[in-house]
């Protein structure tokens, strides 16, 4: 994929404005600048978005999940102590791997570094859950949440991982809201919670990460909610009752129509902007809101269709919607791109969590999803190449 300036150089060379020597010197200079920019971690390095890469990535995740669940379903044949040892090996690999990625690549592979830490942190959570299961510990989920928050939060401080500290915020909120003293400020619980919020905000400030700081502000706000929120909760209850009074089929069909509308709006706004010009809801300028509407709908539909077949159907629909959004705006809108990734990962987790008792079935679903996505990725790859070739051909003609 050539950048604008590279294409310009091609053009100059072709028209004889500059000779071949100058052209190649210029190209070399651009390459060096880009690399230097990347080394410094600046945004200048052209961020290339390929729908093919994304779908291939999704396929890889699905197949990996299928393998993991297949192993999980047959775990009884692995001695328990070996399982715990394996989990610990993953923890060490995650944390050390992240640190080594940082040592080797610095900020250039920041997402991979964070992903390594996340894997390590997730393994810790899984390991504690595993021990709970091994010894039938019925202790409080709240205690476990505090352990997770402390484990991920403190290790996140240690390796300066934004992702780990963000996850810790979630566990901390759970610990606070679920606690017996959630609605009193004069309690040890609230003091601990407030201190942890302060630590999180302080860390985010030190790391100069605005989004992490915002997450901790929100965490603090949610934690305080039970204290100020009796009326809020009552209003919420009334809303829920009213919603529940509507017949189920009506709710589902209404949400499906909204979802269809959101998907259509995305497609029309992106590819046929002139078709419905008079209607601003279809405009590509509203893409963010259209996308959000679809996600909201998916959330509600998940609430309606939560049993086996409905869940699988709903998850497939959600993945399809996310793929449509990525196809339309994955390249241009960073927010849509990343939220789509998160939703996809979330769908996998939901399906896994809900159908954990029929693990082989779940594994089969992921395997099928992975294979389908791999086929889609291949098709998209061919299409992208063909478009590119055609684009080049057109330029050559002109």
């Amino acid at each position, binding site marked *: 994929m050539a950048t604008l300036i590279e294409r310009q150089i091609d053009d100059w060379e072709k028209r004889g404005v500059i000779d071949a020597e100058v052209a190649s010197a210029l190209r070399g200079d651009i390459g060096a600048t880009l690399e230097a920019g990347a080394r410094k*971690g600046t945004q200048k390095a052209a961020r290339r978005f390929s729908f093919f890469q994304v779908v291939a990535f999704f396929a890889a995740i699905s197949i990996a999940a299928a393998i993991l669940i297949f192993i999980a*379903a047959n*775990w*009884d044949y692995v001695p*328990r*102590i070996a399982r*715990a040892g394996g*989990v*610990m090996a993953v*923890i*060490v690999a*995650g*944390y*050390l791997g*992240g*640190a*080594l990625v*940082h*040592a080797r690549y*610095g*900020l250039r592979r920041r997402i991979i570094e964070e992903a390594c830490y996340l894997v*390590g942190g997730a393994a*810790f*959570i899984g*390991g*504690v*859950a*595993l*021990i*709970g*299961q*091994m*010894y*039938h*510990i*019925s*202790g409080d989920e709240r205690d476990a949440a505090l*352990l997770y928050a402390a*484990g991920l939060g*403190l*290790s996140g401080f*240690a*390796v*300066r991982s934004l992702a780990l500290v963000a996850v810790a915020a979630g566990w901390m909120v759970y610990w606070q809201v679920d606690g*017996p003293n959630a609605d009193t400020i004069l309690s040890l619980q609230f003091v601990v919670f407030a201190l942890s919020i302060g630590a999180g905000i302080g860390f985010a400030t*030190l*790391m*100069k990460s605005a989004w992490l700081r915002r997450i901790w502000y929100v965490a603090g706000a949610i934690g305080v909610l039970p204290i100020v929120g009796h009326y809020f909760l009552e209003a919420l209850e009334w809303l829920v009752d009213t919603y529940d009074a509507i017949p189920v089929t009506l709710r589902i069909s209404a949400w499906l129509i909204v979802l269809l509308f959101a998907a259509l709006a995305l497609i029309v706004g992106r590819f046929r902007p002139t078709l419905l010009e008079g209607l601003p809801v279809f405009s590509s300028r509203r893409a963010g809101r259209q996308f959000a509407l679809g996600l909201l709908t998916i959330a509600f539909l998940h609430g309606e269709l939560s049993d086996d077949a409905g869940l699988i159907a709903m998850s497939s629909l959600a993945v399809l919607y996310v793929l449509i959004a990525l196809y339309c705006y994955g390249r241009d809108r960073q927010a849509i791109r990343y939220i789509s990734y998160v939703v996809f990962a979330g769908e996998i987790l939901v399906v896994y*969590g809900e159908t*954990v*008792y029929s693990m082989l079935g779940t594994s089969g679903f992921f395997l099928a999803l992975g294979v389908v996505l791999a086929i889609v990725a291949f098709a998209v790859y061919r299409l992208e190449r063909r478009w590119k070739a055609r684009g080049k051909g057109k330029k050559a003609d002109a």
Partner: protein
Amino acid sequence: MHKKPFLVISALVSAVVLCANMVWMIADRAAILRDGREVVLKTQPIDPRDLLRGRYVRLNYSISRVPPITFTGEKPDYFDSGTAIFVRLEEGADGVWQAAEARVGPRPDDGAGVWIRGETYFRMASTDNPANVRYGIERFYAPEAQAPEIEKRMRDGEVTEVVVAVAADGRAQIKALRQAGNTIYTERLY
């Protein structure tokens, strides 16, 4: 922050601390299993399932409700959620252990008795009604391969006895399931 000083060391320490935490949990539980006093409790199982940890059977014991008459020593006017309660267990004629005495507060220092540590789990306005107590042994996670059969037996009420190991500090740990005196499932140490 572009530089992360001491990163590899920090990562190593983090991983070691997290793993040490897991090892400590395992060693702690294994110690209760190995050294704890064995008692047999009557149980009625209730429903299953846990999102993170797979399936389990929720157990309710005859000692889960502690009648007011068993309380000795000082007693508050009401039970807050999370009040620590120690219950002394005594073996009955049928081999099943029952609550013989209960105390609010720290473990009584009488040496001989088997005291199991529990906590109330919701606020009770009066202490004149039986106290609802949890001992941390209210879940049984069935191993995947044996789960369906054990769960079925438990729900049919055939499994009615749970062998529990009680540590010196009062913490308890499920050790085995029994059915009419025969052990049908024994927990391994590790």
